[in-house]
């Protein structure tokens, strides 16, 4: 596997701040702080808006889509909703009392798994939204990943534990990966922010950070590769303690994992990881990235926040207006 050469293309500014990004090839969907799911199409290096889904009220922090146009979104107010084509398919308001962190469709398209801060893992039917099964795993569940064959579902939590379940939600393995969590003063810091199954469908990739402090949150981005039983095979630290969390990832068709890390405002990188050998092959700086999806062998799109996003006090623009920040979609070529 050779190091990729990344090249950042012209970024596309969005009209709001987005929490997450998922893609089905060129069809992208981003979940907004305003509860709106915005659809885009990556057409070569240009990215065009193709529509939006409304209805959720909190931060839309978990989103997934299936070929054929099924989209599911979950928000920080505990609501879940799905859309198909241009219409709402079903709605599950107040599915949870609190934040729904992540959603992932099963590979066969029958179910959507939803991870919640209340510790519940729920399996809903994608056609009706009815609850198929639910299980309390007793911790803030932050990430989800189905194996490619759909037989296993991995769930990562705030305290750095991973639970692997069967497709019927029977727990098969539970293990801790030490170092993904810390209490600093009063603050709980860390968590497994992203999970992925390896190319062999047997290894698991847990992403997050080795936290050092709360507040600013100083943390070393971390990618831990384990076997399916939780034995640590590789433990990659992707930078220094100002570089924050490994927040999202996408598989390249050539079998390497693209991981985005974001630390102090203004920093961030895309990393090329060979998961099976446990090597970081290449990286490129990107400002404030927190989502990524693969469009094609040559193109990926990164979800990021605009530059100069931080500052104390009432930072105004040249016209004297106090503006919020916004997201950008950053096309990146990799050869």
């Amino acid at each position: 596997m050779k190091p990729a050469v990344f090249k950042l293309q012209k970024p596309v500014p969005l009209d709001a701040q987005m929490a997450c990004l998922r893609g089905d090839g060129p069809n992208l969907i981003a979940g907004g702080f305003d509860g709106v799911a915005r659809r885009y199409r990556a057409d070569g290096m240009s990215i065009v808006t193709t529509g939006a889904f409304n209805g959720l009220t909190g931060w839309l922090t978990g989103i997934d889509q299936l070929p054929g146009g099924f989209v599911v979104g979950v928000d920080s107010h505990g609501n879940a909703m799905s859309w198909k084509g241009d219409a709402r398919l079903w709605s599950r308001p107040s599915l949870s009392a609190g934040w729904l962190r992540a959603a992932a469709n099963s590979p066969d398209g029958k179910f959507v798994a939803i991870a919640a801060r209340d510790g519940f893992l729920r399996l809903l039917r994608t056609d009706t939204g009815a609850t198929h099964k639910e299980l309390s795993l007793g911790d803030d569940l932050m990430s989800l990943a189905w194996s490619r064959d759909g037989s296993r579902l991995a769930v990562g939590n705030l305290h750095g534990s991973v639970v692997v379940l069967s497709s019927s939600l029977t727990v098969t393995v539970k293990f801790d990966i030490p170092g993904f969590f810390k209490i600093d003063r009063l603050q709980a810091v860390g968590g497994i922010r992203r999970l992925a199954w390896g190319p062999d469908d047997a290894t698991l990739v847990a992403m997050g950070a080795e936290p050092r402090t709360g507040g600013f949150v100083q943390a070393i981005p971390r990618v831990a590769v384990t076997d399916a039983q939780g034995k640590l095979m590789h433990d990659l630290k992707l930078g220094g303690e100002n570089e924050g969390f490994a927040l999202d990832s996408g598989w390249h068709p050539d079998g390497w994992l693209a991981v985005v890390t974001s630390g102090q405002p203004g920093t961030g990188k895309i990393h090329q990881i060979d998961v099976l050998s446990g090597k970081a092959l290449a990286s490129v700086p990107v400002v404030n990235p927190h989502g990524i999806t693969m469009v094609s062998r040559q193109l990926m799109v990164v979800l990021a926040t605009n530059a100069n996003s931080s500052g104390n006090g009432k930072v105004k623009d040249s016209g004297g207006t106090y503006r919020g920040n916004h997201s950008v979609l950053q096309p990146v070529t990799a050869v």
Partner: protein
Amino acid sequence: MNCGMQHSLSRRSWMSCMGAATASLARAAPSGGVSSDRQLLLVWLDGGLSQLESWDPKPGTRFGGPFRSIPSVVSGIRISELMPQTARHTNKLALIRNLCTQDNSHSAGVARIQRGDPKNRGVDYPYLNVASARWLGPKAVELPASMVIKPGNGGFLVNETGFLGPRHAALALGDGKPPALLDRPADLAAAEDDLRLSLRDTLDRMGATARGSSLALANTETFKLAETLRRRRDLFDPARLSRNDIERYGDTDLGRHLLQARGLLEAGVRSVKVISYGWDSHGDHFNGSMSLMPQFDRGLSALLDDLGNRGMLDHVLVVVLSEFGRTPRINGHLGRDHWPEAWSAAMAGAGIVPGQVVGETVADGSEVKGDSYDIGHLFHTIFYALGISTSAIHYEQSGQPLPLAHEGMYPIKALLRKPPENAR
């Protein structure tokens, strides 16, 4: 000088520190002090509590963040969903949502807010807890007038005293534990210790008589304080806190320290400050808030329960304050930065009209709507709530009369049960 330094005090620095603290033990009413049964509890959330995740939520707006607001026991007052237990106590609270202050840095803001940001007269004003204790004097005969419970080291907090001088320093219990060097060393027999204390007392008296040494007297007073503190170990021995109480307040630094503060107030300490660190959430703020806020919510709620049930809110004024709030704008690391422009504080208890919100911010929280209050307004209000008239009393500093609070500002009428004539 670090009076909080543990186990490494030379005799000279010990004497100096102890001399600094003597006035905390003053037995007489303070010169020019006021007669009042009131006490102050200042809960200082160091780093900056987010008004949007606490007292002034703006869900569904561009800066509102991921959380909802919830109704409270007072119709029309909604607070963050991260404070469900405190929502049952808004009938005891007055929320001030229109603070607009001057500093957006910790280095300036922490001191400036706690000193009340008076006009610059070339002197450092004392912190609120120290100033209150100075005017109200000790309530319990043997205990310091001003005490602080904080994470980390304890000792006498000389830097808070400003021009009042180190003799007004509050005694801080680091991690809620007794002051260092309080106990007799294990290898020193009680009889031998008594002998040494007797000898020290004799020498101190001789020194005081022969040379008029205030340091010698300070040393004597400090050893007396040590005796008192040893007898009142129940006030600051975490091992003696009730398990049930710890459960109610939360088994966290903040919960335990608020519980200890209740004990100090009951024992008659005039001014108690609880400091909580770790609120400067520039990054990952919302995940951080989900661990920070429940600890604050639980501890404050239990405290308000207890103070209310014991009738203490009649004479104890509770103030929850930071050096500033946090930016409405959410940065690229999902954090909020420093924000003095439009933020909130909360008060409860003595002299305050509870169950209300004073002031408001615009829909997205980016500025105060209508009139704003600076920290000087809040200082006038707090002093009046404690029974200290800021128009009748002033400091005397080297012959110069100095107002207690910014003379360009005034008490907030809506907050005070008995507002003075100059309140607005």
